[in-house]
């Protein structure tokens, strides 16, 4: 794929003809060079919410990244199980969610909204369950469009069930097939934006986090994850093209956000989570190398780096996703948002109404504010961005690596690297250097008991070999062979 051939202002195509079966088996075991060799946004001051060099125009005319930030609403069931017996109740919940939230969106006159449907595992395991909900949501969205002109697009995010096999089977079998079936069916039904929180490499990454082992982090993400995503996203984009949908984006949720949550719980150092985040950009980048066009998945806090590299619009989430997880990135995340998401909230009653509706309202007001600044022009938008960034940057290492300057530095380190392994290494080194410099300069607060980890991480990186082959050999010797299947990654 020659990225420079992608037209600015991608439009969701009418239909296509390729099929998922037609993708030739490739040997992903060999080192793959990075496809993006330069930044789509080389200047920090061009990295801005609501604005992407390659916006995405949806069927009903949302221009994501085209000068406006849209709310992206996420929701899930209250505590209950999902089975054939409970599906009528499940369906009622989603019917209630979509009609109530979109009614409110209409009342608040939002210029458009992205609805994300992220399935719970049983809905991927039984695609008919997932598809029933897809249709309910699409009907609700169409009804809102007809009754009060509300424009919307559906993002479909099947839960990646492949890890239910232990060790995970990534490229075939029941879990893989049902997931592909759900993607196909959803795209056919009218889901426009295909996404996933893919889990390739996670089976080793959890333990790598616990041990604060950067070698295993890079192995999990930049060797295993990268190969899995290449395989997966080739196929997802074929499905998308066949049904006039697009591959939107992936996220290192199970990697970067697991690290962030563990850091919030004081399980692992924040400086470590910050470096993991930088590394995760290399893994998530692979979806854009294989045809994804954005908006990247909301919970990918690595998205600003990917926006700089690809020029694609990105979903972001921050303070208004506190319903789903606490974070040290509440405001700074908004600095780059093309859609602004609440990540996930259960359909439970709050005093003000059902929780998804309450969160729709909060997102709508957040977006209004950003859109006022955008509406006044670039200087005003940069002023708001400055406040959003400065609000968080000095208080947490994970926020610091999301300053516009850090984002450009890490993005540059990645595109300058020859392959994904060395890109991961370069991203880690760059993040580490920026943390050290900022702390030394008094611009970033790091608590004393974390400081030692800056040096120990550097030592870990110094011990990693230059060549990917050597690295893979070194890390495979360290990884628990019972936990993963190298051949599922083409190794």
């Amino acid at each position: 794929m020659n990225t420079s051939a992608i037209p600015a202002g991608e439009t969701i195509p009418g239909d296509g003809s390729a099929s998922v079966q037609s993708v030739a088996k490739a040997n992903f075991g060999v080192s793959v060079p990075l496809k993006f060799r330069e930044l789509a946004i080389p200047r920090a001051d061009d990295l801005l919410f609501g604005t992407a060099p390659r916006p995405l125009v949806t069927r009903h005319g949302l221009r994501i990244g085209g000068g406006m930030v849209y709310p992206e609403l996420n929701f899930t069931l209250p505590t209950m199980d999902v089975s054939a017996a409970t599906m009528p109740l499940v369906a009622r919940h989603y019917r209630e969610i979509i009609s109530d939230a979109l009614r409110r969106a209409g009342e608040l006159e939002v210029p458009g909204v992205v609805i994300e449907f992220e399935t719970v595992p049983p809905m991927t395991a039984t695609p008919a369950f997932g598809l029933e909900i897809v249709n309910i949501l699409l009907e609700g969205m169409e009804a809102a469009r007809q009754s009060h002109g509300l424009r919307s697009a559906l993002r479909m995010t099947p839960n990646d069930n492949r890890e239910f096999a232990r060790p995970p089977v990534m490229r075939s079998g029941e879990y893989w097939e049902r997931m592909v079936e759900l993607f196909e069916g959803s795209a056919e039904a009218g889901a426009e934006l295909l996404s996933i929180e893919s889990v390739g490499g996670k089976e080793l990454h959890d333990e790598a986090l616990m041990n604060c082992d950067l070698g295993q982090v890079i192995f999990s993400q930049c060797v295993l994850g990268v190969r899995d995503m290449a395989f997966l996203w080739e196929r997802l984009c074929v499905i998308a093209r066949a049904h006039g949908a697009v591959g939107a984006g992936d996220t290192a949720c199970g990697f970067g956000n697991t690290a962030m949550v563990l850091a919030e719980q004081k399980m692992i150092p924040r400086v470590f989570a910050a470096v993991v985040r930088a590394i995760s950009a290399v893994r998530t980048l692979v979806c854009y190398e294989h045809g994804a066009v954005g908006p990247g998945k909301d919970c990918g806090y690595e998205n600003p780096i990917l926006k700089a590299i690809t020029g694609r619009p990105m979903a972001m989430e921050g303070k208004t996703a506190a319903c789903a997880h606490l974070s040290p990135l509440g405001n700074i995340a908004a600095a780059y948002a093309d859609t602004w998401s609440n990540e996930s909230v259960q359909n439970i009653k709050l005093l003000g109404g059902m929780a998804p509706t309450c969160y729709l309202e909060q997102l709508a007001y957040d977006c209004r504010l950003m859109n006022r600044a955008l509406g006044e022009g670039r200087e005003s938008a940069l002023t708001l961005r400055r406040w959003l960034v400065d609000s968080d940057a000095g208080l947490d290492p994970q926020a610091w690596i999301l300053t516009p300057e850090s984002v450009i530095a890490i993005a540059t380190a990645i595109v300058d690297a020859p392959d994904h392994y060395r890109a991961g290494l370069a991203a880690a080194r760059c993040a580490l250097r920026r943390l050290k410099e900022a702390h030394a300069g008094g611009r970033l607060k790091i608590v004393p008991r974390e400081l030692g980890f800056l040096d120990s991480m550097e030592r870990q990186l110094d011990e990693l070999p230059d060549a990917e082959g050597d690295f893979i050999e070194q890390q495979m010797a360290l990884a628990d062979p019972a936990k993963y299947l190298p051949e599922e990654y083409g190794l």
Partner: protein
Amino acid sequence: MTTLELLSEAVASGKSKDAKALVQRALDEGTAPVEIVDRALVPAMASVGEQFKNNLIFVPEMLIAARAMKEAMSLLEPKLLAAGITPKYTAVIGTVQGDLHDIGKNLVAIMWKGANFRVIDLGTNVSPAKFVAAVVEHKAQLVGLSALLTTTMPAIVETVKAIRGGVGQAVKIMVGGAPVTQQFADEIGADGYAPDAGSAVDRAQALVGAA
């Protein structure tokens, strides 16, 4: 410092090689294996657990201590076994059916081991029947159920029912995981709840009467 004091320090700071050597020295000095465990290893892990609970150290630092403890125990276990000495309390732990998340569960397992519980880790996606069978087989005093998904909380309820149906109140049940609350624990008849891994040890010890 005495050998046992040095050993305790070696374990707490995660020095596996030193720990192993110091166990050997203590044995050579004639200290009984059970005394080495009770007076050096368990206090070392208790102090590590305490530091972790108070956010003074991180998981990786706790894990290297746990590894040092394990190394030390590798010398002692055959002798304890030969003398018929086993940990006083057995705990079964697992992530309930339909759920794969195990980070929290693994941490709790490590911390319980550090507190000298025998821990039977059933892994993830564990059926109610498997929990019951393990409790019976290992004569567990304690069982820990973990879940991270809201869709699998009903599986906690089912598992508690199955355990109560199988062995009644004989075993203490602890529940935990992101969507679990004290209120939920109360409602489903669990004996204990811990909001985080750090507090899971105190709670477990109190429940089995080891505190």
